[in-house]
């Protein structure tokens, strides 16, 4: 399957799963909403341009907003993580590594620890943005931080499950294979 088709299918699946499965779960202790859809942005190929990344982030957030009737809330969070993603990858990976070996970020291509760092930081930023924009107040810094941390933990567990269930077999990129 080509990268484009694969990502289009992913886009639809993530939105549908988020809207019709995860959003139906009542928030645990009114605290934690399980979010998974933004994994789409984290899984986009390394080669994608920064501007197209921003546009895709906006589209993803906007689609979710259209379903949950919160226009702009998730779009803002997704645009933010789409903007930060390239900087983070630059910090975590050396240039040769990411350009030569694999197509998209994964434990295989980045190494386990950098990959988990990458997931955690972007998940945390996404959650903080969504929570802050939806409440427009923190309600006490401790409460806010704990809420964001719990939500991040839940999201990370979901991401882990997704990785285990749908293993992404990535070919080693060589000059001839692409």
């Amino acid at each position, binding site marked *: 399957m080509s990268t484009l088709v694969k990502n289009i299918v992913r886009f639809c699946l993530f939105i549908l799963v988020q809207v019709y499965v995860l959003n139906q779960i009542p928030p645990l202790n009114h605290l934690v909403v399980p979010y998974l859809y933004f994994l789409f942005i984290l899984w986009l190929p390394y080669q994608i341009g920064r501007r197209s990344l921003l546009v895709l*982030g906006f589209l993803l957030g906007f689609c979710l*907003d259209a379903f949950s009737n919160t226009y*702009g809330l998730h*779009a*803002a969070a997704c*645009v*933010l993580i789409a903007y930060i993603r390239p900087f983070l990858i630059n910090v975590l990976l050396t240039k040769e590594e990411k350009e030569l070996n694999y197509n998209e970020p994964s434990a295989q291509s980045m190494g386990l620890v950098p990959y988990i760092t990458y997931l955690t930081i972007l998940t945390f930023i996404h959650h903080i943005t969504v929570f802050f924009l939806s409440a427009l107040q923190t309600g006490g810094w401790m409460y806010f931080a704990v809420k964001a941390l719990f939500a991040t933990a839940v999201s990370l567990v979901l991401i882990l499950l997704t990785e285990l269930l749908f293993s992404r077999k990535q070919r080693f990129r060589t000059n001839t294979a692409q």
Partner: protein
Amino acid sequence: MRNVIIFIRIYFTFFFFLLLMGLSLYLLFSYNKYQNAVYSEVANEVAGRINSQVNKVTYYFYLKKTNDSLVHANEMLYNKLREDYSITDTTNRLVIDTLRVDSLEQFRRFLFREAKVVRNSVSQPNNYIVLHRGRDQGISQDMGVIAPNSGVAGTVIEVSKNFAVVMSLLHSQSNVSGRLKRGGETGNLIWDGKNKNILLLKDVSKSAKINQGDTVVTSGFSEKFPPGLLLGYVVDIINDKSSSTYTVRVKSAVDFETLQFAYVIQNLQKEEVNDLLKKVKSK
């Protein structure tokens, strides 16, 4: 110029990010009720603070007129004092009540609170007055506002912690129920947006005898204003042959341009009346 273009080209991705972020936040604040409410509250508070600083300067230009209007108000009140009346009937004796507790307080219907005007416009199609008194000082939505000469100025439409925004009579959606003082015929006072001193009293029945200079007062049917507050004076009648009612042009009693102080009216019995109406409607 060239440098500016180069600068923009270098940081184009960043500007693009700002653009998309701005778009998202715009959607967030304009299509979601809660976020919109928080935004307007904060914006109101910030704008109010700036306005009150600016008003500290402009206030000086109106000191003379403000003083005059306050002196007039005082004069009017002095004339209402009980000591000013002497009763010749010897069976009645005037006793001044020195009790601390005002026994009339429980029957009070309207409570007046003074407020400083910090911003005021007269030349817009929709004009607003900003008062330096807000929710923390007992103001809430839908309270009536009058000027020191007891002329109606408008209605509170938005409150934040320390400021309130008043929809002035000079607003396209302003609608106050008025009454001709002489004949008692009622009508609706609106503004057509053309002249900053002229209001229109609509739907006055054609049986009314109206002269130039007649006083128009509040009817008391509205829960915001007590009856008998000044609205304005009749200028002339627009006689529309095709309709069964008069439209009267009224010169407003309040000089909106020099307004520096206002009184906000709280109706203490509003809830009781509303509860009663609700009960009737639910039957």
